[in-house]
């Protein structure tokens, strides 16, 4: 069993309620931070912990916090990004649904550190029932003196508000989220200015993911240095992985980032192997936008070394032979899955979610969807594959926000690693409608298929 810092109490009966959460040691970090620490000391602990943003980008949290501007007389805001919408990712939902007070606790400490008196949780609109759970937890925290005016007699005031989105993946991008919080369309802003200088209502703002803010609780309780001892290299602490697709045990797992991908997929502690005794074909290890990897490159790096579940190892080899840890949305595909069809559904997703501001993304995502649909339905031509490659290349890096990259990478990786499957679709328009290309050369090199 690996170390658990976030989900260790998830199975305690009644942990969702304030009484049980408090009895189990909850809100200790608020007492410690507000009574014994300065705001600078809290930021310093978070820096020492090596905590990296858990939403997908992996940017060092302490450094992000230290960027916040502090102009005299201008309120600052902490905004919790709970707009979890990346296909394959459902970890924040789990954390908020079962441990709402852990998030609230992390938010109070972080709000204190950043000087935010009004903190907002921007939650995706579809998580309507979780909004109710969070609002109840906030009411309980307030009734027990952890929120509101003059918390613990320290003079610090803080309120937390929950705002629901309304169905837009793009609002997970921090400047789009800020626009949405202001009551606008979710069109990302051009940076600079960065939110730390001019964010919501043009005030200095920090936007952090749910899991990131929850991780502040163990960091304050155990100290940044102790937290940094867990994990390896720049992948410190624990990470929530939401595993889905063709595995025996889909769900949310907390890992310390020293286990191998093989152990994560095949051990009974985690995914429990591939469903129905089938073989592993491919995996998207960090949410739908990160490059898909065939089994051989997933379990071992191009150098033949075991691949680990952490930031560095998953990106070993760059995009040529590696991928990314991303948001931890771990999507497993078995031997029966069609890469063309999977890529098509993801391209459709990104077309649907493009905000439409930048032409390369607005037009390009639509073209990619159409061409992929054409190939998937047996009407593709060989030149379509090169055309797809060309389009994705022209989207990447040419848009205001990373949605363009997120749409381009899955298509690029699918062609890079599975070009033979695309060609097979073009060459076998009828057969491809009724049967599957199968495993071929990229079969799992460890659990060798018979």
């Amino acid at each position: 069993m690996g170390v658990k810092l976030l989900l260790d109490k998830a199975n305690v009966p009644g942990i969702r309620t304030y009484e049980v959460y408090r009895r189990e040691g909850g809100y200790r970090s608020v007492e410690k931070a507000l009574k014994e620490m300065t705001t600078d000391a809290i930021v310093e602990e978070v820096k020492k912990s090596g905590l990296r943003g858990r939403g997908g980008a992996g940017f060092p949290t302490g450094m992000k916090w230290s960027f916040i501007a502090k102009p005299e007389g201008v309120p600052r805001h902490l905004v919790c990004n709970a707009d979890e919408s990346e296909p394959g990712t459902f970890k924040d939902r789990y954390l908020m649904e079962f441990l709402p007070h852990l998030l609230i606790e992390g938010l109070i400490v972080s709000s204190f550190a950043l000087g935010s008196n009004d903190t907002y949780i921007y939650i995706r609109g579809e998580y309507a029932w979780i909004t109710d759970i969070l609002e109840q937890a906030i009411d309980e925290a307030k009734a027990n003196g952890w929120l509101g005016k003059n918390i613990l007699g320290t003079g610090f005031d803080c309120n937390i508000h929950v705002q629901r989105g309304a169905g837009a993946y793009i609002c997970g991008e921090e400047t789009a989220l800020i626009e949405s919080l202001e009551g606008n369309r979710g069109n990302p802003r051009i940076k600079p200015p960065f939110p730390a200088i001019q964010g919501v209502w043009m005030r200095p703002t920090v936007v952090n993911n749910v899991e990131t803010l929850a991780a502040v609780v163990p960091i304050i309780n155990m100290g940044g240095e102790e937290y940094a001892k867990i994990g390896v290299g720049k992948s410190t602490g624990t990470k929530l992985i939401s595993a889905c697709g063709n595995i025996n045990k889909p769900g949310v797992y907390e890992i310390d980032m020293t286990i191998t991908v093989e152990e994560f997929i095949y051990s009974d502690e985690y995914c429990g192997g591939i469903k129905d005794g089938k073989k592993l074909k491919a995996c998207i290890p960090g949410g739908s936008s990160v490059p898909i990897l065939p089994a051989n490159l997933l379990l071992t790096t191009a150098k033949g070394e075991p691949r680990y579940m952490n930031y560095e190892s998953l990106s070993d080899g760059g995009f040529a032979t590696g991928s990314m840890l991303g948001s931890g949305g771990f999507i497993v595909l078995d031997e029966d899955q069609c890469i063309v069809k999977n890529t098509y559904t993801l391209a459709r997703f990104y077309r649907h979610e493009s905000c439409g501001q930048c032409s390369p993304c607005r037009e390009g995502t639509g073209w990619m969807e159409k061409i992929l649909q054409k190939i998937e339905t047996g009407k593709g031509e060989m030149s379509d594959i090169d055309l797809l490659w060309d389009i994705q290349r022209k989207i990447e890096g040419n848009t205001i926000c990373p949605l363009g990259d997120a749409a381009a990478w899955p298509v690029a990786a699918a062609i890079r690693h599975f070009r033979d499957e695309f060609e097979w679709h073009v060459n076998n328009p009828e057969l491809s409608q009724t049967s599957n290309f199968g495993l071929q050369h990229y079969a799992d090199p460890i659990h060798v298929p018979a």
Partner: protein
Amino acid sequence: MATTFNDIQMTEFKRLVARYPEGKQKSALLPALHLAQDSFGGWLSTETMDYIASLLTIEPIEVYEVATFYSMYNLKPVGKFVFEVCQTGPCMVSGSDNIIDYIKKTLDIKPGETTKDGMFTLKLVECLGACGYAPMMQVGKIYKEHLTKEKVDGIIAEYKAQAANN
């Protein structure tokens, strides 16, 4: 249908607006539109949107541009129960195509359509964050997960019974 909030709805509206700084009441637009959609028959008419604009003292166009951007707002009437079935990658690899086909056949409607009795609308949606519990659909506030054909039959029966009891 009335397009003014009753007292309870107005209290909720005021609670939403109070969460934002003075003069930044437009920030309450998304939650206000959710409230309006829930209050006025499950969709947003032009009349409803104009009403929200007047309450927030913003231009109607500011409401239209937001209502048309976000996929959860219905801009035309929908059935009493809306089945929003996820069709994105992780659900697809877990068999959502079969579930969608089954719902289409059982309710005899295509995506975007409503049954003749006004009971059910079928919408195909993109990832709802239930990938580990796929295939799935959302009905109102509720997620229905690990869907099978049998489970779909049960869900349809459940809502028919619920409608009959009201």
